[in-house]
């Protein structure tokens, strides 16, 4: 079996390219996806290959084109909507919240909405509060959405292919700072199933649950503790909703301690939900209260000193691990 080393952006592009070859109903729509080759070059070269009928530049009109894509999905097409930043999805919030995730249920099963909304989520480098918000707990609160957030090229490709084939609306959350992360992946076609978390490092003493970019800091913290003889098990959720609580609970039953790390804010966050489900399933197994490491309760500050302070980092994760291991 052949392998290739690809960046996450290339893995995402391959996923869309392969699926577009499989099904002519798939098209990509968003700001700067075509002639500009994508604000972050995820769609680089796709206009040249597929033409303007399937790689579609839009005006800055998120509410208009997100809703248009939802309507297209309801009437037989398979749209992939790129948000240049998930923060711009707020302008289209009515379309996502009132139509995309509700149309199938409220129509009594008449109109499904097979659509993928994708783009970079959360903070980049000092882009301040209106471009840095993490949206997963907002959209995760809405029944009807699948929420996915991969952390590496393999999962990015395999999960995006699964998302495109899903018959329901998918919120697909990428990370701007990680688009250039490289990984060796198969050249042959593969899929990654939706709804399956993965133990990315086995350990015995404590479980660390996270997803997407924060896993980098989790690994660093784990490496530091390994030198002190402490073995950390790290779980990559990969799919946030539906949540694979079975994989998380199995780990917690083994380690009896757990830290949850999330780039987004702490109140009503994903880690609040995962933590709640852990106490439901593992109440008698826990040897210490759960600890969360999340973004502090402020809009994202611009100054890099403050930005670094508010986003979870290796030091804060280490402190949390130390606390639950005490």
């Amino acid at each position: 079996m052949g392998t290739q080393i690809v960046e996450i952006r290339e893995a995402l592009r391959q996923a869309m390219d392969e699926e577009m070859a499989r099904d002519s109903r798939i098209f990509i729509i968003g700001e700067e996806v075509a002639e500009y080759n994508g604000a972050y070059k995820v769609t680089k070269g796709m206009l040249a290959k597929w033409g303007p009928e399937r790689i579609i530049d839009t005006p800055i009109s998120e509410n208009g084109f997100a809703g248009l894509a939802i309507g297209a999905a309801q009437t037989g097409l398979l749209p992939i909507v790129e948000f240049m930043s998930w923060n711009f999805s707020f302008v289209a919030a009515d379309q996502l919240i009132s139509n995309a995730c509700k149309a199938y249920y409220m129509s009594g099963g008449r109109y499904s909405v097979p659509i993928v909304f994708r783009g970079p989520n959360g903070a980049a480098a000092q882009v301040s509060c209106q471009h840095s918000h993490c949206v997963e707990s907002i959209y995760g609160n809405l029944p009807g959405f699948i929420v996915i957030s991969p952390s590496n090229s393999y999962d990015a490709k395999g999960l995006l292919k699964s998302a495109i084939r899903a018959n329901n609306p998918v919120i697909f959350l990428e990370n701007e700072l990680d688009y250039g992360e490289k990984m060796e992946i198969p050249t042959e076609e593969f899929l990654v199933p939706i709804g399956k978390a993965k133990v990315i490092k086995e350990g015995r003493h404590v479980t660390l649950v996270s997803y997407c970019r924060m896993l980098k800091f989790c690994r660093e913290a784990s490496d530091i503790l390994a030198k002190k003889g402490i073995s950390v098990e790290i779980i990559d959720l990969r799919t946030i909703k539906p949540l694979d609580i079975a994989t998380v609970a199995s780990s917690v039953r083994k380690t009896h301690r757990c830290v949850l790390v999330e780039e987004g804010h702490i109140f009503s966050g994903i880690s609040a939900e995962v933590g709640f489900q852990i106490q439901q399933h593992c109440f008698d197994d826990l040897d210490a209260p759960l600890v969360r490491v999340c973004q502090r309760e402020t809009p994202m500050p611009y100054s890099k000193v403050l930005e670094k302070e508010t986003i979870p980092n290796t030091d804060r994760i280490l402190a949390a691990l130390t606390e639950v291991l005490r």
Partner: protein
Amino acid sequence: MSKEPYHFFQADFHKLLSSIDQNLLKDVLRQMFLIRNFEQRGEAAYQQGKVGGFYHSYAGQEAIQTACIAACGRDHWYTTTYRCHALALLLGASPNAMMAELYGRSTGIAKGLGGSMHMYADRMLGGLAIVGGHIPIASGAAFTIKYLKQKGLVSLCFLGEGASVQGAFHESLNLAALWNLPLICVIENNQWGMGTAASRAVCVKPIAEHFAKAYGIKSYTFDGLDFFNCYAGFKDALNECIRTSRPILIEAVTERFRGHSISDPGLYRSKEALKETMEKDPLFRLKSVLLEEEILTEEECAAMDKEARDIMIAAMKFADESPWPDPITLEEGVFAPQEKI
């Protein structure tokens, strides 16, 4: 407010009358009776406590959508607002299933999950209840028609004058004009956005004639109380949309008979003004023409009305006797089955 006289679509009434099949005219009147009776019975059921939530009656506006379906047919994509009962009936939804939907029963058109504001039919995407939020969905249907090169089809979207100042409306018009989508937006100006008069909400009058210019598209103004004007206008607009592959904006000037919803007593309108409005009843107007032209007799009209009433009374009985949704099914149908690929 920028105000100019309306330029109503011009159609020669007598020429038109002789060109329309008499059976079609009878059928159209029958449909208007069905709509009127459905709304009367639906509101009665509401007053009896059988129907919950909101209830928005289409009474007084029947000529517009009835003419639209008669002129354009049922093959196109249709989307409308929460005032959606007439369109679903016209597109073939059964009165039984619609009434059962109002009653929240498992036999409802949306299995009791949608209610009064979310009616559907085979080519009807809703029944959508956020003012203006349904217009991008309709533009998506127009996009699909263009993408799949489905010649002769368009996407028709009804909205109120209140929605004509929503961002979603203007974004959709820009996209549809930019991309040459076969989208026909029909502003049913019923003069009131809940209790706010159109003149207090929209900065221009006529609406379509003004806004269409801004997007470089063609506009029409119809007398929304006159079936014949609407019918001829929709025929022309449909041909124009298909011929040019360009979006079209229509304003059909009408006035609703009832409050915004059933819970609105309409205190902002004087009794005299309402009486004056109801004297312009589009159903009565069409009926008068058919009587004058001796296409129907008074007795035949009365029989038609009675038949519609009987259908709706039977629908109420059907709804009343239908099973409630089984609570065990509550969480079913949030996600569509994976049958697409």
